[in-house]
């Protein structure tokens, strides 16, 4: 497939970059036009990525729409893009949330408008590249390069402690990333001088090497996820970032870590992955409980949502490291769900902050009477985040917990406590903000949603409800790719006799997926 004669994935990835260049050419004063162009580019890119669904072959595990060019022939670095059932949904999530984030900034950002939208669009190119690159160096270039626009977004348009937050964000991410770079180079020499993921993932490396390489990759991804105890950059970055930055950060950037595990760490180092699984699961469960407990005591709305991300991403890791088809599918679906519901929460918090210039829970109360529509939509997103049946969060959490329980009953049992705690802190927060009587006079005059804000929230809520009621189209497209990863992790480097039970459990776990999804 091509768009305007350009291969489709390249077109989708670099349209925002082209948009950013166009923005730079618009005269400085024309802010209305800058906003329109940026939003237009965002929507167009979303539509182009939707078009991927059209040509995507359901039932195929491998990479589709592949593009392969030499980039640096001397070192065999390739420009190699492709999309499969795993990355497809993350690409759609990225283009969707970026368009929403652009629209949500129209009123909030009034200074250095041109640079702001240029940064957002550059960031989009970086994120799409991360999800589409199948050459390890190309992946790394997008992975690190994407830090630069995010660094400016937080640092220039952020809150009072923005400089501390943004430098911390960059240093943490970079510290994890550089060791991955060394590991990538080592893989090149171990794996027969290639950076091609499809070739590398077909090899079995020596157990000793696998351990080191897995550790280097896992550190980079664990910081990005973020897994406890590498999460400390996250509350700072989320709180200080502008609303759109928080939306992208929570919605997409954190998924780069979990996606990295699924795309690189698991298939490249299956043996080491199995060895390290108890450690990763332990950290995931600690993250789930710790994030939930810390969320409970946050006085600041944004901080509460930020810590809730630590908890939610713990579930994602739990499902993934169960190594069952059901668990991994739930994990992947929960990545999308978290992007939608946490992105939605940050949007809502941003809207209330624009009106009131405060994010403290104690400053609110009784908003249901003042802003009924806002409160209703807030309720839907809150319930989605908790995992109410009928909304998207339930499907993801259910698949994760049921997929993980058979393989890891104890870890799963503790994780289930997190679901309860999640309901506690979210509902308590909602109660204090929305219910009760108005305790602050200035809250009486708050305006309800504007048409633009409707346009921002309605698509998010539509997606939340759609996945909650009918997740089958999503699950069906991801299943073959997920199954291939699960098979790879469970079988590589094991004698055939040991594999069959693992595979049986994997395929046994798989069938209820379709049943559960279809039956709901």
């Amino acid at each position: 497939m091509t768009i305007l004669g350009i291969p489709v994935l390249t077109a989708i990835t670099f349209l925002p970059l082209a948009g950013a260049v166009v923005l730079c050419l618009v005269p400085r004063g024309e802010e209305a036009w800058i906003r329109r162009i940026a939003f237009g580019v965002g929507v167009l890119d979303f539509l182009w990525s939707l078009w991927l669904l059209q040509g995507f072959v359901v039932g195929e595990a491998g990479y589709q729409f592949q593009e392969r060019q030499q980039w640096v022939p001397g070192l065999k670095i390739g420009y190699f893009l492709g999309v499969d059932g795993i990355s497809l949904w993350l690409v759609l999530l990225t283009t969707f949330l970026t368009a929403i984030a652009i629209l949500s900034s129209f009123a909030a950002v009034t200074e250095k408008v041109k640079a702001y939208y240029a940064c957002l669009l550059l960031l989009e190119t970086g994120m799409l590249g991360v999800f589409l690159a199948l050459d390890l160096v190309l992946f790394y270039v997008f992975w690190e390069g994407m830090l630069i626009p995010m660094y400016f977004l937080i640092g220039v348009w952020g809150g009072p402690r923005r400089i501390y937050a943004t430098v911390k964000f960059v240093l943490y991410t970079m510290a994890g990333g550089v060791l991955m770079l060394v590991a990538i180079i080592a893989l090149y020499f171990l794996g027969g001088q290639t950076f091609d993921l499809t070739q590398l993932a077909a090899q079995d490396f020596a157990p000793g090497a696998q351990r080191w390489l897995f550790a280097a990759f896992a550190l980079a991804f664990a910081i990005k996820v973020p897994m406890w105890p590498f999460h400390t950059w996250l509350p700072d970055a989320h709180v200080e970032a502008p609303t759109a930055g928080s939306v992208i950060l929570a919605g997409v950037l954190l998924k780069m870590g979990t996606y990295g595990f699924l795309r690189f760490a698991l298939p490249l180092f299956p043996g080491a992955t199995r060895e390290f699984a108890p450690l990763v699961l332990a950290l995931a469960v600690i993250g789930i409980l710790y994030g939930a407990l810390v969320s409970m005591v946050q006085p600041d709305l944004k901080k509460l949502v930020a810590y809730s991300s630590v908890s939610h991403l713990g579930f994602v890791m739990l499902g993934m490291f169960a190594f069952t088809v059901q668990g991994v599918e739930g994990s992947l679906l929960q990545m999308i769900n978290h992007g939608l519901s946490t992105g939605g929460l940050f949007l809502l918090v941003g809207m209330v902050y624009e009106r009131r210039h405060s994010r403290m829970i104690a400053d609110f109360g009784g908003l249901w009477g003042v802003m009924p529509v806002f409160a209703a939509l807030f309720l839907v997103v809150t319930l989605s985040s908790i995992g109410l049946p009928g909304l998207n969060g339930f499907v993801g959490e259910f698949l994760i917990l049921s997929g993980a329980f058979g393989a890891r009953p104890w870890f799963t049992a503790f994780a289930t406590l997190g679901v309860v705690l999640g309901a506690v802190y979210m509902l308590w927060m909602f109660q204090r903000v929305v219910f009760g009587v108005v305790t602050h006079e200035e809250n009486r005059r708050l305006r309800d949603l504007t048409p633009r804000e409707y346009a921002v929230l309605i698509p998010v809520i539509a997606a939340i409800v759609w996945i909650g009621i009918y997740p089958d189209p999503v699950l069906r497209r991801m299943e073959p790719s997920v199954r291939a990863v699960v098979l790879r992790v469970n079988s590589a480097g094991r004698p055939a006799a040991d594999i069959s039970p693992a595979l049986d459990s994997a395929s046994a776990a798989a069938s209820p997926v379709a049943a559960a999804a279809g039956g709901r």
Partner: protein
Amino acid sequence: MPIVIPAIPWGDLLPYAIVAVTATAILLVDCFLSRAHRGWMPALALAGIAAAALAVRGTGGAPGPLMGGMVAADGFARFFHLVYLLVAALTILLSAGYLHREGLEQNEYYALILYATLGMMIMAGSLDLITIFLGLETLSISLYILAGFQRTADKSNESAIKYLLLGAFATGFFLYGVALIYGATGTTRLAGVAKALAEGGGGQGGGLLLPIGVGLLLVGLGFKVAAVPFHMWTPDVYEGAPTSVTAFMIAGTKAAAFAALLRIFFFALPSRQADWVWILAAMALLTMIVGNVAAVAQRNIKRMLAYSSIAHAGYVLVALASPQSPMAASSALFYLVVYALMNLGAFAVIIALTDRGERRLDIADFAGLGSRHPFLGVAMAIFMFSLAGFPPTAGFMGKFYIFSAAVEAGQVVLAVVGVLTSVVSVYYYLRVTVVMFMRDPVGEPAQGTATPGLALATGVTAALILYLGFFPAGWWELARRSARALLG
């Protein structure tokens, strides 16, 4: 023994001749010109450089050593000649406005830059330790004068004296090393040394002459590249010298000394690899750590870039300490080009954003300048991200090649320390962008005038850094072919 005068290959010596003649012409013509016409001298210097660059393209017709084995016009020499000429051209572009502002418009400056360039070219083209020494001295003496060019400023004088005293010691070490190597192997020709060692020679003086001699060479050249522990002079000299001279020293001198190191270690001493690899590895390790850690504490931007230049010398040393990799030499070559471009660009912006009299050089003085001067600000951000090694800039590609060479050669520790110290460097490079874009200006802002020359130098370097970040293949291939000459 009759003295044989070797045939003089004029065509291959033309680049040296053009640079030398242009420099001398500037000195002579300047005396006879009225003040009004002296402004043409930078243009004359640039024309000479352009002519020399064209002449470089015509050299190397007959491969092999020239002048009885003293110099070469091989790919290695030609690569570095083009690099030095590019550095000299960019230096002249960013000097004109600076000299005018500081009231230093004396055309000897351009002559000295060209003489220094000539010295660097001789170093890269040498196949004999004595010729390397001649080039080193030509370079050094020009730089001693240039460092003190701001005669009325104390700091500039301090810089010149320090550089002269320590530099004289360093060249002394170098020369003594040459003498000891001659004693051990009976020759100063690099090819002769290599041959003697390969045949099991070099054992004169109880076998101690050679290692001591090589060690002394390493001291002398280590001083020029500012490798730890021979780096102490760097911050003071780079801070005190006129800013345009600092740019030239950071970008050019280091490339020249590394060219000599590569010739000596990769071409003359490969048979003793096991003996010297660990020394270079230890130096690389120390240099990366000390340079990066010390840079964190700096407030003055010239001092910060001085320490950063130490750190970058460490990265190049990583390549030198990985000779088992076929990529080692070429990755060093590629990195030196990238390194020169990043620093020249950064110094062009610094010159544009500071005031007369070397004031406002604290990093804090750059507050808010990113939004006030978007072109310079964005360019500076590109240079800083490239120095820190972020993709998609050339700085990332350069480091990527070097660390690939290190991993291939089994120097994984060096690669790991290299990337971790890069994270440290992110902190101090980012601080410049933090100050420029995320803080509001304090007090009266600096004049901040980008003369056409400065703007051109900034634009060219920034564009090249992005270009090499996206499309490194062409220049990498060039570096690879050029490094092949070292294999003999």
